[in-house]
């Protein structure tokens, strides 16, 4: 215990100086002990975790700081012109996507969990499959189908629906984000205490009344959580929105930086940060209420509603969603990949892009596995206001849009650490800032399975806290840490906005190629990279399905 180290040190000094210093020191140590409720962590560990989390928060803090110096004129001009339009376009898209994702996600969850649908088991994971398709890849497929040079135009001469529009963006985002609502609602339905439904039935309510009066009110927290997740996603998405040439805050910030007006970009970022924080605040409030809802751990096989005549339309609806969000996009990609491969798309350059992706993502994943550990360990074993703060601060890069992180990093590295600027390492750092919390969550959940008395047992056997960490804790949580690293790896491979803004010139990754080739309508070169990214994304699917 560091405690002891400080105390011993204190004792020696007392002999040396006594008097004033003694009082001064004991006040300091008492204060230090009080912060930690008498259980102070190891000093190196504490420093390591604090520095990590400070670095995680730095880009955002720097953007906020700089926005304060953007000048009154710039603020007034942007507030008068861009900001109101952007607020409207961003929030309206967020609301529409959230509503549609909720309708699709909740209805599918209820149908799959509570109705006599053939193939319920398979449906449970088939309908979650769009999770493996990043929305910007989904956007690519729909541009290929409905775009000005797309299939529909080739076959019919004109496209009935302009994909480069509000509704185009809304459609694509809905189709590739509804699985979050579907999974959260399904989990809530599974955990729901069946006695409520049985009690309602005993009171003579019909199935329809039970749905509206029992199920939906009990699902409110799950639905709310899903809604906030979707809304936050729309706020932060860059790839799909920019590919579909719609304008929200993220794309506006991106193009502002493209025209080297970084200060205006900070102002827009500041507004987006505020909007995001408001949504996060609402989330924190609703989460507090969530615990009052009674759930059960034991799973009872649900009594299924007999759909009867409705079975056919319901099945058609489910298959339509599955077709539009999985079958069609994958088919399009396979078709164009085939064309691409025949034209020699899998050349040396392609594999070089792939290797670039693996290199930076792998580096980021390794770094995350190392950096997550001290923060998670402190939070779990030395709970105090300070460790909670460190933990929360580490989430700032994860909670806020990638373009803002990139903006902050450009400022900091350009100005203070130029030798890292324009290097792949910078890209890896950006991925760490964006995805560290994924590895933290994973390490945290395996750490929570280890009783704190395991730590104490090792200490009573003569091992200092830091040694306990290496000899006992790390061997035990290695599987969780590796899983977290895999998650970070996949997220980093898919990452688009920060990659576009921070990559060194000439350093292309798979995600960047998809972006470039699609904007130039060279679909047969975009498709193989997109397909490869989807294949990689399947790796953590099992973990994601079990998470909700």
């Amino acid at each position, binding site marked *: 215990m560091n405690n*002891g180290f400080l105390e011993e040190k204190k*004792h020696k000094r007392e002999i040396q100086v006594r008097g004033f210093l003694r009082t001064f020191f004991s006040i300091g140590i008492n204060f230090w002990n009080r912060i930690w409720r008498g259980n102070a962590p190891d000093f190196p560990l504490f420093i390591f975790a604090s520095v990590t989390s400070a670095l995680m928060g730095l880009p955002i803090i720097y953007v906020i700081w700089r926005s304060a110096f953007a000048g009154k004129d710039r603020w007034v001009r942007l507030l008068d012109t861009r900001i109101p339009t952007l607020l409207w376009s961003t929030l309206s898209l967020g609301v529409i996507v959230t509503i549609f994702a909720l309708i699709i996600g909740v209805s599918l969850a209820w149908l799959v969990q509570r109705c006599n649908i053939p193939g319920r088991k398979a449906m449970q994971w088939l309908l979650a499959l769009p999770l493996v398709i990043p929305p910007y890849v989904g956007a690519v497929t729909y541009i290929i189908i409905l775009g000005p040079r797309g299939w529909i135009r080739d076959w019919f001469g004109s496209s009935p629906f302009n994909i480069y529009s509000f509704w185009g963006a809304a459609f694509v985002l809905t189709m590739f984000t509804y699985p979050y609502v579907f999974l959260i609602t399904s989990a809530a339905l599974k955990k729901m205490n069946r006695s409520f439904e049985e009690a309602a039935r005993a009171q003579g309510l019909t199935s329809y009344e039970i749905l509206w009066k029992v199920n939906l009110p009990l699902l409110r927290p799950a639905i709310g959580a899903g809604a906030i997740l979707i809304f936050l996603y729309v706020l932060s998405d860059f790839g799909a929105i920019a590919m579909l040439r719609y304008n929200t805050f993220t794309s506006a910030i991106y193009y502002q930086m493209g025209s080297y007006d970084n200060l205006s970009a900070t102002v827009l970022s500041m507004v987006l940060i505020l909007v995001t924080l408001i949504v996060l605040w609402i989330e924190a409030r609703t989460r507090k209420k969530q615990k009052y809802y009674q759930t059960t751990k034991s799973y009872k096989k649900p009594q299924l509603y007999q759909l009867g005549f409705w079975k056919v339309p319901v099945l058609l609806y489910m298959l339509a969603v599955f077709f539009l969000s999985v079958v069609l996009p994958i088919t399009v990609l396979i078709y164009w990949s085939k064309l691409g491969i025949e034209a020699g798309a899998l050349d040396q350059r392609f594999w070089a892009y792939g290797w670039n992706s693996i290199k930076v993502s792998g580096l980021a994943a390794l770094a995350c596995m190392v950096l997550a550990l001290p923060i998670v360990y402190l939070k779990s074993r030395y709970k105090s206001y300070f460790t909670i703060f460190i933990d929360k601060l580490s989430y700032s890069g994860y909670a806020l849009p990638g373009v803002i992180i990139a903006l902050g990093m450009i400022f900091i590295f350009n100005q203070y650490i130029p030798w890292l600027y324009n290097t792949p390492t910078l890209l890896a750092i950006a991925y760490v800032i964006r995805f560290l919390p994924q590895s933290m969550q994973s390490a945290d959940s395996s750490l929570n399975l280890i009783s704190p*008395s*395991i730590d104490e*047992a090792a*200490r009573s*056997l*003569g091992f200092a806290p830091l040694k306990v960490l290496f000899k006992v804790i790390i061997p035990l949580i290695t599987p969780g840490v590796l899983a977290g690293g895999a998650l970070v790896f996949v997220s980093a491979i898919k990452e688009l906005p920060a990659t576009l803004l921070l990559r060194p010139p000439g350093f292309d990754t798979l995600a960047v190629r998809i972006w470039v080739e699609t904007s130039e309508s060279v679909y047969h070169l975009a498709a193989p990279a997109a397909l490869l990214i989807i294949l990689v994304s399947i790796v953590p699917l099992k973990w994601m399905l079990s998470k909700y």
Partner: protein
Amino acid sequence: MYDIQLIGVSKTYTGSNEAAVKELSLNVERGSIVTLLGPSGCGKTTTLRLIAGFERANKGQIILAGKTVSDKNTWIPAEKRGIGMVFQDYALFPHLNVFDNIAFGYRESDKVKRVLEVLDLVGLNGYEKRYIHELSGGQQQRVALARALARRPAVVLLDEPFSNLDADLRVAMRLEVKRIIKEAGATAIFVSHDQKDALAISDQIVVMRKGIVQQIGTPREIYQYPENKFVASFVGQSNLIEGVIGNDLNTVVTSLGTIPCQHTHCLCEGEEVCISIRPDSLEMDENGHIEGTVIQFTYTGEAIDAVIALDQSDGTSQKLLVHIHPEENIKIGDHLRFKILPNFVAVVKNE
């Protein structure tokens, strides 16, 4: 020679107004087994953690094997105190096998010999290659004990070691753990909320309540002569009856009559006290002067637990819990007479 000494130790957790442990003083003789007994929240586990070095006392001094490990200016952390500890959930390392678990903290060169030695002591020869999840609860308990003893600690601390075992195994393990600790020659402190564990295993019992020691004594002293109402009712069942110390200082005058008592704690004549009568110390007797009606009874096999409503002259109602020999045939409404066995009657302070 004391192996563990606590002098005026107090601990208040941050964020709490009430002390978890208040002015606790305790001396534990070398080689003895002491149990801290009390209901949950009485401070027994905190006391154990203070001795182990997982919590730091706000006040007082802790001396282990003659060495001060905690006072105002001294703080030896847990890993340097050289204690052995057995945890409630055993806290065995799931990634290590039995051998490596036991050898975990052992740094001498004769590691293999020592591990086999303690394995023999706990009766688990041949289990060294097994992993923890391949062991039964009782075997895990033995491994935990072996691990705690491997380093030959002067002091072994055991936190509710029997609470995860089912009833039969529990009885067997009590004897076994006591044998192992005595054979190892260690000084042990148990924490328990189970009076049967405490009575069976201890040389000394410390009864605690709300952070304050209520009584320290041998199991017999605690059971036969509880000092206050709490101890009387927490350790075993008891009938508490108010009375006054009689004029010969060896009797207590109660509504049941004048009852002879040996231990009167040197209280003065006329002082208001309670007497504690164990259900076992009331014996059915034709000539007994306590008379009452059976109003409720439960047949437990070992005895009949009956509640008797006494016939009292002054009109007040007094109920007594008695144990009747299971061969007797009683019915509700039966009139019975009892006599008191004087050795099981204790005078307790009426607080």
